[in-house]
């Protein structure tokens, strides 16, 4: 249970409790099939497990989200982490170069899944 003495906004307390339960459930949805489904089509109509995972990842606080940085349009991309702080630019997370944004998107998905499993 979150520490109520450190959080003034009581809404945040419930949010943290809700999300902890949500993560417990979402971890059960992670399968190799879901990962493969995302690899093939990161956008579009998805199965419910993949949809739920993506909705969770896409609604994380901005400071916990990744983005794709274009090195050369349609040829080379990198994964970066958003700062979530106004005016502070994103940071590189590694040196990996992806030949398409689809592959970069999938790399981000795998990172998000890993962080979910470890949370």
């Amino acid at each position, binding site marked *: 249970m979150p520490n109520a003495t450190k959080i003034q906004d009581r809404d945040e307390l419930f949010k943290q409790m809700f999300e902890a339960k949500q993560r417990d459930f979402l971890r059960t949805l992670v399968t190799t099939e879901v990962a493969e489904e995302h690899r093939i089509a*990161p*956008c*579009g*109509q998805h199965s419910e497990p993949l*949809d739920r995972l*993506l*909705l969770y990842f*896409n*609604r994380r*606080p*901005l400071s916990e*989200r*990744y*983005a*794709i*940085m*274009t090195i050369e*349009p*349609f040829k080379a*991309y990198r994964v*970066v982490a*958003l700062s979530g702080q*106004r*005016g*502070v*630019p*994103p940071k590189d997370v590694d040196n990996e170069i992806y030949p398409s*944004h689809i592959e*970069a*998107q999938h790399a*981000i998905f795998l990172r998000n899944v890993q962080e979910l499993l470890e949370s």
Partner: protein
Amino acid sequence: MAQVKLFGYSDRISVKPGEVIQFYVNADGTETAEAQLVRLIHGDQHPAGPGHVEQEIECPVNGRWRVEKQYTQVGSFLEAADTERRLALEGSFTLFAFVHPLWPQVGMRQCLLGRWDNDKNCGFGLGIKQNGLLEFWVGRGDEVDYLEAEVPLKANMWYFVAASLDAKTGRATLYQEGVVNRYNSVLGKVAPLDLSSHVSEVFRFRPKHLADTPFLMAGSRDWHEKRGHFVSQLYCGKIDRPGLFDRVLGRDELDLIRSGHRPPAKGMLAYWDTTHGYTDQGIGDTVTDVGPFNLHAKGYNRPVRAQTGWNWSGRNDCFRLAPDEYGGVEFHSDALIDCNWKQTKALKLPDNLRSGAYAMRLRAGPGTGLGEEYIPFFVRPKVPTGRIAFLVPTASYLAYANEHLSFDAPIVQGMTGMTPILTDIDVEMYKNPEFGHGCYDSWADGQGVCYSSYRRPVINMRPKYRISSMDITWQYPADLSVIAWLEHHNYDYDVLTDEDLDLEGVAALEPYRCVISGTHPEYYSERMMDATEDYIEGGGRYIYLGANGYYCNVAIRREEPWVLECRKFGDTWKAWEARPGEHYMATTGQKGGPWKCLGRPPQKIMGVGFVSEGFGRSEPFYRMPDSYDSSLSWITEGIEGEIIGDFGLAYDGAAGVELDRYDLTLGTPPNAKVIASSGGHTDNYITHVQVQLHQHPGITGSYDYRVRADMTYFAAPNDGAVFSCSSIAFGQALPVNGFENNVSRLLANVVNAFAKPGPLPDAARPEVTSPETAPAAS
């Protein structure tokens, strides 16, 4: 060596041959740039299209330009016209104002009112300390005396604040009282709050004044070695009815002003009545001083007027009903209307310049990325020559200008279902407040941005740019695909802009047999709506080549057409929400927001209106029964099969991104025909809030039949007609396969028929009956 960066803007967006356009360029890491006038043909680098296409054009200013670092004053404030230095007070004085701080704990000092030089520490000021405490200070250059309140100001609450200095005794007094009513603040009366503070102290000295320090509200004078004078200590929040007296006002006198009484005449030097000057048509940037010396204050970077004041009662929702309750003038530390850079170059456009989309291309250093800049503008003909006009939706470009959605909007990834794809230009914009914001952003203090301007570099009004949150071209670069299509087919077309339409009305459209819209003409002023409706009613033929158009009312001052006002609220999807009571635009006095909520759904003019948006995948259109009506066969002539547009640069389909739908209940003319409709959209496509009274599961693409784009056609009076494509992705399907595809063919069929003199092919069978009045079959 510093990285080379070039950014620029022009003073005008729509110019005619023979007229002068001025360019303003900021350069980092270089003192020169190679300039080349170009005609822009295509701006989407998607590999399935023709890529970026431009033509270099001879002009007198092509070649090497001297460029330099330029500085931008961000933040809005008011400056009093005090040429006789009446406010350089050396004797006793009192300052007061009603204030509604938005971000008192920002961590930087904010000056509310004062004649203060922040660099030389001279003068006096009343402001907010870094920690949110109200503070009064007096400086004589070498030293500053400060007096601070005991309780910090709270955000989004109204206060009456004052400070006085008795020149004889040196006694400084601070007055802080909350003026909260049932409506005006974020918290009401039941919240146990300590809003009051009254403190006093003896200052050691009186203010020393510099000759040229201006009296400012919401900022103070500062200086930088390279930049010269500028304004810092910018304030975020509202100020209502501030004043200045040349004597100490007693507590009882301040109590009376706090309770709404007019300040006494004795000793009044200035009293800026922020409620003065409202008309039925709005209000300007000058705040009237109703004191004895008429020291009117001029707004810089357009402080927001038409905002509720400290005494807003909640009964009246517009300044037109109760101007006395609309004294709030709202300031933002990162507001930007005009960079006001030094002019880099001026160009008198060659007399023989053909109408079209142009840009001044600048290159330095590597000549790519941040080392390449395009300053776009549109050239209208001296006299209309073409049969066809492409109406460039510049009002919508302004609304989206420099949007920061990928960085600052928590909703955007959930909305698009996509990860943002950034470029170094996006990051450069994000790092520098000098680029300002668009109407999809909030200012740093959390309030929505209601003004946008093109007198600053607008990075997304550029060829090659892709909107980072959606990975497609959007607005300007997407519309270049329509220009490219017109070029490919050698149509004799002119371009004109929303700015021209707003200024000239229907006269701007009348010379043309056929007018084609941009892909997303979402933001439309009333003058533009009227002109478009009158053009069609008068026999004009209009192709609405997009979706979610004619959606939101906006306002543009005739004398400052580079600025757009937009208020977002109510029954719509919105990036921010205007406060209650602040839904009317200061520019015109009109209510902002969706046209549907004002009684003019887009269906009434275009036959279709916004129904859904989604991202990541588009779909094709499928022919509907009306397309097989022999009288309408001219629309689909040469098209084989049922499917139209199973390709495109925007998610591989002609129907996608945003979709419009035929809806008789919202004003689709009853004679409208549906030529083709899309379907099979993913569940990322959600039906718009306006098309249902309640949100519930099952209103997304795979559940709801309404999630579709309807390609419609109807004949209008006097041989006029409207063809609506109903999809943003339609325009981006045109360039596929070298413009040889069935979307391109269908559009050509319509354009050819619309631009041809005489009645339309289906005119032999006019149909104006409505289902309700049609005679029953016998």
